[in-house]
């Protein structure tokens, strides 16, 4: 008897009467099963998800710890025992769960369908942490900008593999278009945001702006615009390893540079190193949205790769 397992749920089918290469739909999970296809190799380790999980947990520990916590002066698990506000407890629990699930997924302990839950948790956190009312683990990057950056990041990650490149192009194009659209059709009072950005750059050369304004505002804005253009061009067919690297670097500049600039602006950075690390570390990993962006973009890319494997 010739048996073909479903690559998604593992249900086994007698395929003796089917020719190699034909496909049918799994009756248990609905996944397409190709006769004769080798079982896709497991993905036991994902460096990107590992980095995302570590960043999430590190961001939480920088935010809440009794030594030099930026937001809460207790360990995260202690917050669950006392009279802390329910919203704080829930946010911290969700954040910790998403980080731990990212780590478990990265190490291959979770099942193959792991990425769906990772994407779900990351999206829930993006949805709630970007609300203006939120005080705990708040993310300053606007909701739609963060989603655009997640789509762009996931698209760029998928461009490296020829099998996932078509989907990567769609995601990169969508994310890039959202970003460039925002620049073209957002207004600061009556001035279009793109015109304002160009005027700011002129101001830099004219010496009207301080170094802090340049590093905190002008350079990240330009990097975001360039990243959007990279995404649009990648969606239109441009590619290559350098292209992906450039796009990812620009996105990291957008997310990290304001926090780094804030650290450099300190008069005496080493006077109270611990609290500075907590404050600027939280700003870099949590408030900027870096941790959530890493988790969501890698989870989306991982989901797309798993989906491709099981087709």
């Amino acid at each position, binding site marked *: *008897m010739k*048996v*073909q397992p479903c690559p*998604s*749920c593992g249900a*086994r*089918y*007698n*395929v*003796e*009467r*089917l*020719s190699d*290469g*034909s*496909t*049918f*739909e799994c*009756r*248990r*999970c*609905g*996944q*397409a099963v190709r006769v004769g296809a080798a079982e896709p190799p497991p993905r036991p380790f994902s460096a990107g998800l590992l980095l995302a999980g570590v960043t999430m947990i590190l961001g939480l520990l920088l935010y809440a710890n009794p030594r030099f916590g930026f937001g809460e002066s207790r360990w995260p698990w202690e917050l669950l025992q006392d*009279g802390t*506000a*329910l*919203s*704080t407890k*829930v946010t911290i629990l*969700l954040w910790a769960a998403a980080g731990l699930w990212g780590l478990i997924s990265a190490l291959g302990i979770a099942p193959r*369908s792991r990425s*769906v839950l990772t994407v*779900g*948790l990351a*999206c*829930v956190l993006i*949805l*709630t942490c970007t*609300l*203006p*009312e*939120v*005080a705990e683990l708040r993310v300053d990057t*606007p*909701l*739609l900008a963060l989603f655009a950056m997640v789509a762009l990041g996931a698209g760029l990650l998928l461009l490296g593999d020829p099998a996932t490149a078509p989907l990567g192009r769609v995601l990169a*194009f*969508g994310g890039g*278009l*959202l970003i460039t*659209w*925002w620049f073209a*059709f*957002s*207004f600061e009072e*009556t001035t*279009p945001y793109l015109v304002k950005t160009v005027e700011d750059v002129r101001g830099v050369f004219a010496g009207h702006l301080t170094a802090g304004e340049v590093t905190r505002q002008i350079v990240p804005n330009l990097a975001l615009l360039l990243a959007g253009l990279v995404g649009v061009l990648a969606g239109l067919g441009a590619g290559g390893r350098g292209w992906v690297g450039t796009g990812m670097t620009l996105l990291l500049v957008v997310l990290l540079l304001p926090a780094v600039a804030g650290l450099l602006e300190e008069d005496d950075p080493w006077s109270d190193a611990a609290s500075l690390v907590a404050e600027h570390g939280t700003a870099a990993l949590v408030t900027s949205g870096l941790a959530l962006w890493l988790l969501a973009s890698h989870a989306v890319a991982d*989901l797309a790769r798993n*989906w491709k494997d099981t087709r």
Partner: protein
Amino acid sequence: MNADEEGFDLDTQHDGKAGGSASPAAPAPTPARGPEHPVERRGAAARPAARRAARGPAPTAESAEPSHGLPFLFRPGFLLVLGALVLAVLWAGGLFSGPDASADWPWTLFQTEGGAVTFTWDAAHVFTALGAFFAVFFLLTPFGPAIRSRGATVLTVAALGLVIFPPMTILDRMVVLLGLAAAAILAHEGLHGGSGRRAFVFVMVLLLGACLFLPIQSPGDAFDAQALRVGNDLFVDGDFGEVLLQPRTAVVLLSCVVFAVGLLSWIGLGGRWSVWVAGIALYLGVFGPMLLAWRASGADYATCHDGLRSVVQGLPAAFLAFTLPVAAGAIDAARS
């Protein structure tokens, strides 16, 4: 085991071949009993196959994994046309022109007093022009199969429309998620079921549940989740009838319905009923709050434009207007 006894014709949609009688018999799940079980039986065992052949063709994969079909009212093309019309009506009410724009009809923005055409690159002019573009695009998309077959295109254009609006409140997010969750249920139950669409339902249910039940603010306040707050207003603190007729209550209650249906659909208890419930909730989620806002504004039918403006200003109308195109794009993307 005998493949004939449990077999069914394959739905060959995945390899692009036409289905029907040319399809080979499909395998059935086997609990790995090993090769000692005969694959083909002869004699008496062959007779049921003959009887089945006399009865007609074997059940198809469609019936084994039922496809309930999408009623016309919930098909992406119809949703797009309807969404375009809603967008056009709200556009006429000044949805894109902003609160500072003239109280006149939006197209007067592009006319000088002398009647000449004018255009300035400011928010009111650009957004009003874009609003017209969105309405026309969504209206024409169903008639251009080359575009409509790419659900991602519709979704992207709808997302572009949402980007131009200011930061989204929790209610705005819920309105958009209501549409996406309903689309996920319609795609999962109405189209042929698949793991991808089930995952879509899962993620959307998770996000809608987060908007409804996660406590967001007000430290120490037990009723700071949207669903609990509305429930509290309805049954404890507020006047039931008055609270029930608020647009916010309508959005939250309909989101609760879609959340519950999505949950049942995800765990496999959905069916044709969930297609209808999700579809009707989608319609009520768009039109219910608009009608309630219209009613709250005094339902001034005599001065149509004033009535429209009051709806536009009293609601997350932009997000309501984009809900139908977002849902249509998501269903289309799930189908393709």
